[in-house]
């Protein structure tokens, strides 16, 4: 069996519209007849899950914005009013709050899928870079969203993170003043963060459209990493991939609902139920869990760390700026992966060394997240520093070198052949 794409025959009103604005033809081409490799596994559902999460976040966010007050005197209480007095306000708010976590869970797995199966390689480099841009935009949106309830972690997290920009030479201080709209995180900051938090999801939506458009040119990668050689290697997106995605969506909703209904604050921080107070600093300021790996990289750069001394200090960069550069750099190297990976084989399934390198990278990323949530004391400092080194080693050294030295396993001649006689 194979994918087929007979031209759709529309009649009546649909035909009238479609001749003038071919949206029905487009939907048919891109979401029904669109050929996808028939060997996709459930990792390929995470793009759809991420799209669904974005829609859920926008929908719940618009409703919350109708009740929320972006004013330092009112914000905290307006959120509590949503929780207590607005009909099902608690439901909408807990969906939005945990939806942010679900978004990052789904997107991190989506990125891991890309790394493991080489989805970033030619001809999908731009698709990958658009994905990294979406990740960065998501981080911005999530960070500003966390500020809105105006709890202690909102205020102090915002203070710590916006202060990072002061590390940049010459413009740093002015940049921070601009971000704040004043000389501390205060009402103007909350106002502009609210405006930007409302804007960014639509920017993300725009980049997602580009991401999907860029996907629909070459089509999906697949677990073999071999491009489809003809209709015998693909199936129609609908109903085959959609029916598979439905199962993925089911399990996704199961986790989402378990969080929302039974552990809505499990992933949050208790301090954010204390109203923001500029006079009292929380003893331990931590960002949300999905930022912890980057936070660990940021904090690794201390004045006496040899990496800092060797790489940064001699050209006049202080430890703070070094940490900021490393944190942003950790995303830049991710965007450069299509050129850092020198192997011609896409899928780690046929790459005996790289397969393990990806596994170690994931473990290391989890370790970074773990130490990122710990207080700044031994042994966590050393662990964070070693993990930071490993993070960059993976991209800047292991990826190119493994591509050169590794002997890939023989590739099947086509997707159909791999399905009939799997390599493993």
């Amino acid at each position, binding site marked *: *069996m194979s994918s087929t794409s007979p031209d759709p025959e529309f009649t009546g009103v649909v035909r009238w519209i479609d001749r003038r604005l071919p949206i029905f033809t487009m939907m048919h081409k891109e979401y029904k007849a669109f050929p996808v490799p*028939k060997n996709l596994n459930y990792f390929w559902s995470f793009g759809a899950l991420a799209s669904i999460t974005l829609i859920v976040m926008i929908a719940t966010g618009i409703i919350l914005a109708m009740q929320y007050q972006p004013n330092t005197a009112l914000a905290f*209480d307006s959120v*509590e009013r949503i*929780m*207590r007095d607005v009909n099902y306000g*608690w*439901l909408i708010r*807990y969906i939005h709050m945990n939806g942010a976590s679900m978004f990052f869970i789904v997107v991190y797995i989506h990125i891991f899928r890309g790394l493991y199966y080489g989805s970033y390689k030619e001809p999908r480099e731009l698709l990958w870079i658009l994905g990294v841009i979406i990740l960065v935009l998501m981080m911005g949106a999530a960070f500003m969203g966390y500020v809105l309830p105006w709890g202690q972690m909102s205020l*102090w997290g915002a*203070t*710590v993170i916006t*202060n*990072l920009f002061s590390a940049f030479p010459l413009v740093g201080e002015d940049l921070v003043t601009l971000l704040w709209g004043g*000389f*501390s995180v205060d009402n103007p900051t909350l106002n502009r963060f609210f405006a930007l938090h409302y804007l960014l999801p639509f920017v993300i939506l725009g980049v997602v459209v580009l991401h999907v458009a860029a996907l629909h040119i070459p089509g999906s990668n697949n677990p073999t990493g071999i491009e489809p050689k003809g209709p015998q290697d693909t*199936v129609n997106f609908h*109903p*085959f991939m959609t*029916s*598979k995605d*439905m*199962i993925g*969506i*089911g*399990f996704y*909703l*199961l986790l989402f*609902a*378990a969080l*929302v*209904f*039974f552990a*809505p*604050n499990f992933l949050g921080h*208790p*301090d954010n*139920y*204390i109203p923001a107070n*500029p*006079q*009292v*600093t*929380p*003893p*331990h*300021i931590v960002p949300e869990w999905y930022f912890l790996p980057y936070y660990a990289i*940021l*904090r690794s*750069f*201390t*004045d006496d760390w040899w990496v800092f001394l060797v790489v940064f200090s001699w050209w006049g960069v202080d*430890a*703070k700026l070094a*940490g900021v550069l490393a944190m942003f750099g950790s995303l830049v190297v991710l965007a450069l992966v299509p050129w850092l990976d020198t192997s011609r084989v896409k899928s780690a399934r046929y790459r005996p060394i790289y397969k393990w390198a990806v596994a170690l990278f994931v473990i290391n990323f989890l370790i970074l997240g773990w130490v990122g949530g710990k*207080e*700044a*004391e031994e042994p966590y*400092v050393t662990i964070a520093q070693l993990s930071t080194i490993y993070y960059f080693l993976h991209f800047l050294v292991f990826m190119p070198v493994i591509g050169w030295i590794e002997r890939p396993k023989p590739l099947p001649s086509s997707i159909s052949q791999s399905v009939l006689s799997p390599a493993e």
Partner: protein
Amino acid sequence: MLTSVKTLSTALGLALAATLAWAGPASAAKAPPPPSQNWSFEGVFGKFDRAAKQRGFQVYTEVCASCHGLRLMSYRNLSALGYTDDEIKAYAAQFEVQDGPDEFGEMFFRPAEPKDRFVEPFANAREAAAANGGAVPPDLTLMTKARKNGADYLYALLTGYRDEAPEGFELSDTQYYNDFYPGHAIAMAPPLWPDGVEYADGTPATVEQQARDLTTFLSWTAEPEMEERKSMGHAVILFILFFIVVAYFNKRRLWAQLH
């Protein structure tokens, strides 16, 4: 280390220190984690024990309310404890709220009504601090959500006072030693005493019992939606499981055509 700060610049400096320098170990002595208790409202099927909620409300009213507010609660919310409209009206009427301006432009005081928020014990934070040796008693509405291990912590704190600080531990005149308070030196005097309240339902009012009831009550003020949330959750989870089964057979049926 990071304690309260007075000026903006030190606040920012400290925030930076917290981010960008590995400061030494936190100087504040860490309190041990509170022992885990069994609560009626724990777990996916947990509900608030209504009798405990009522007793806890009594403890709040008679012991805590003189210093601690419940500013996010309205008197009408008490119907969830099982009180009638008349009982709630009578309870609210003990308190006075400022209203107005009236037709002559004058502000006036009137008895609180069910629609009003709980009247706060102090007019503002300055008054609260002045009346309590400089420490502002925190609002209790969200207390169990605003602390790690909320309910367990609150119970441990309420029952964790020691008559005397351990040898060598310095306490000021307005501080008390508590095993579970971060840094141990707490400004709140031990609030609960045996038979400090006389329960309407005749339950012996030990310190542990009062602490347990109060914790149940404050867990409810923090999450008044909890029972509705969990029961909706059961329906949603059942629906999703059904959805997964349907999706699974649908997928199998469709993909069977391919082979």
